[in-house]
């Protein structure tokens, strides 16, 4: 049994800034929903656009989508947690995804993942404390001939080895 992650009320000092961000985000979300003409079949496309824009799906955004599309919150919640492209918590500035497809696996992807885990100190699905890196795994990027493959901020790097992976993560702030 679980309640979806609800962002608790903010400290008074930061609440002013947070409201400004909320208004900006709300406008972006509204625009995205309108672009899809509020069709209920577009729910996943709308959530993908919000995820791309805000790098996560805030609960307030989901509430807006529920209202405008006339889709019950339970279905939105199920959809947002069912599909792995979505995150209900804020992501870091740089998203790292390591391919765990069969071809990459056979060429040693689990060892590359371990090196990255040890370096950043987080597990797949987590974000580090400085909100710099978010780590995830993905089940096949389709670059199978170049395995193991890692994607950082949509840039793909192939033919990885545990020894050389550390160097690739430098230079990101």
């Amino acid at each position, binding site marked *: 049994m679980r309640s979806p992650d609800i962002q608790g009320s903010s400290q008074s000092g930061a609440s002013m800034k947070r409201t400004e961000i909320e208004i900006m985000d709300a406008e972006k979300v509204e625009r995205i929903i309108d672009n899809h003409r509020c069709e*209920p*079949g*577009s*729910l*996943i*496309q709308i*959530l*993908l656009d919000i995820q791309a824009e805000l790098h996560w799906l805030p609960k307030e955004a989901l509430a807006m989508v529920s209202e405008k599309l006339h*889709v019950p919150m339970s*279905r939105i919640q*199920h*959809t947002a947690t*069912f*599909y*792995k*492209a*979505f995150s209900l918590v804020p992501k870091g500035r740089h998203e790292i995804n390591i391919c*765990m*497809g*069969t*071809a*990459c*696996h*056979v*060429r*040693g992807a689990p*060892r590359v993942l*371990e*090196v990255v885990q*040890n370096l950043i100190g987080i597990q797949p699905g987590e974000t580090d404390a400085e909100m710099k890196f978010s780590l995830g795994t*993905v*089940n*096949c*990027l*389709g*670059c*199978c*001939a*170049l*395995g193991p*493959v890692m994607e950082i901020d*949509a840039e*793909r*790097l*192939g*033919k990885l*080895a*545990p*020894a050389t992976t*550390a160097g690739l993560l430098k230079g990101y702030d």
Partner: protein
Amino acid sequence: MINSPAELEKLRQEILSKRDPGTTRISICAGAGCLATGAGKVITAFGEEIEKQGLRNDVNIKGTGCPGFCERGPVVVIDPEDICYLQVTPKDVPEIVAQTIKEKKVVDRLLYVDQTKNEKAVHEADIPFYKNQERNIIGNNIKIDPKCIDDYLALGGYSALAKALFQMTSEQVVEEVKHSKLRGRGGGGFPTGIKWEAARNAPGDTKYVIVNADEGDPGAFMDRAVLEGNPHSILEGLIIGAYAIGSHEGYIYVRQEYPLALENAGIAIKQAEEHGFFGTNILGSGFDFYVKVHRGAGAFVCGEETALLLSLEGKPGEPRARPPYPATRGLWGKPTNINNVETWANVPLIINKGADWFNQFGTERSKGTKIFSLVGKIRNTGLVEVPMGVTLRDIIYKIGDGIPGSKKFKAVQTGGPAGGCIPEAHLDTAVDFDELTKAGAIMGSGGMIVMDEDTCMVDVARYFLNFLSEESCGKCSPCREGVKRMHQILTNITEGRGKEGDIELLEELALSTRSASLCALGRSAPNPVLSTIRHFRDEYETHIRDKMCPSHSCKELISYYIDPDKCGACRICPRECTSGAIIGDKNQIHVIDQAKCNKCGTCFEICPARFGAVIRLSGKPVPAPIPEEMRVIVRKRNPKREKQDAGNLLTD
């Protein structure tokens, strides 16, 4: 806007007349694979060098679709000579322009070399990887810039559409596809023509056609290459299918992990629309058709038809019971025809060249060609298109050029998570829809993952069950619980906690999971387990009984050890060790601290061949480190050797 077949032909002739076949053309693969190895920079480098040499008006450069030779990318083809260069870097570009473009000389070092015969191949057509294929579909990729519709038109694109709309009735189109015996290329293998006929005959005016580009099998990227590289071929097939069935609205469902395919599909649709191949009154035929691209959101199960339909409706992708089949009740309850990318790509060929032409390829019950992704422990990784009926052995050895590093072949995994592993004994099995099932596998969507002696087959089964437990929708209990339990048992076995009776328990769980699951994901989930038990039972037994991994792969069951008699104290492995577990210095034999070792295997890979001192032990205790005073090596200095070793330290 083109308003008749005659106008289309006129436009085609105009395009061709502006293209002198004698002009020098440089085609660089711009598929996702080559881009990830730097093809973008190569394209820019060519642009700059051509400009610098003042050749802008004489030479055409284009980024093209993926020709499939991914192991050797970036791939560059120079025409009209059809010279093929491999693994091209920006540094090679000035030489290529100076030698090949200007002097018409070949740059030897960039050519393909056959490892066994030690021969070089100059022309793309002579490279054994390509020569032994029948590239009806993927052969065009290197000739097309996917962002340019003119390239597709120059090759005869959309002539099949014109023929279907103006020279055939919709019934005749269905008959032709039935006659071709084309079977679905996504893994199901259902006769396409019969599927179309069912949708065509279903009552109702609103019908949908869908391209299933949710290629989720890990290790398979055929659809990615075709959709990215030649999107118009799929669009043309789709509109022909829509005409045949009586549908006016279609979707292309693309997984969001394929951003370049999404981009190129979007560009293609826009350009096709501008030319009048989509929309109202296509080519003046009176037929209307509209298409939209719809992104997946990271769910393998959405490759299943009914789950895909729910995803299009904005819902979680939980498969539903069939009957009713999508052909009668599909998207929004309307008759719907869903086909795989490669299936659609075959349609324009069948319409243009005829079902009889198509039937000359393949076997009695499996007609045509199939694209396979040949990956894993194989020299020539990439996409391979062959007629059905070619044997696994021919694909792996004739086209794939065998296993690298003088390792021994162990198994080839086909059919993705629904498939099985085929050992050496069955390598002469013909690859088609039916033969592979006798060996305990399936052809599936075309993934072929080659494994060698270093691959642990129990770990392979565990890997697939892990994948399936992440991707199962969880609606039905046989799959949700069965996959979870099988995965737990396999994990225990690979981590040294296997028990007597585990194999029998796996077989029992396999029965209920395969028999009672709601959809094909659950029903085929036991396949990787059952096929590896069938062909590699001894590996299971060794893991369980002896707590040993014969392939030295399962981390919990192996240890890395430096043989003190062989260690040359070159200091490479202490430097490269990812967990700082190796103690050793110049003239001091290196030792691995087992407590710190994370089993990444770097030391094993990196120890110079002349020492070969790092070994893997499994099923036996690690010898205690020799006393420190005995680790000192006294030897004559070899400055040349030291320099070489130091060089290795820097460049590795």
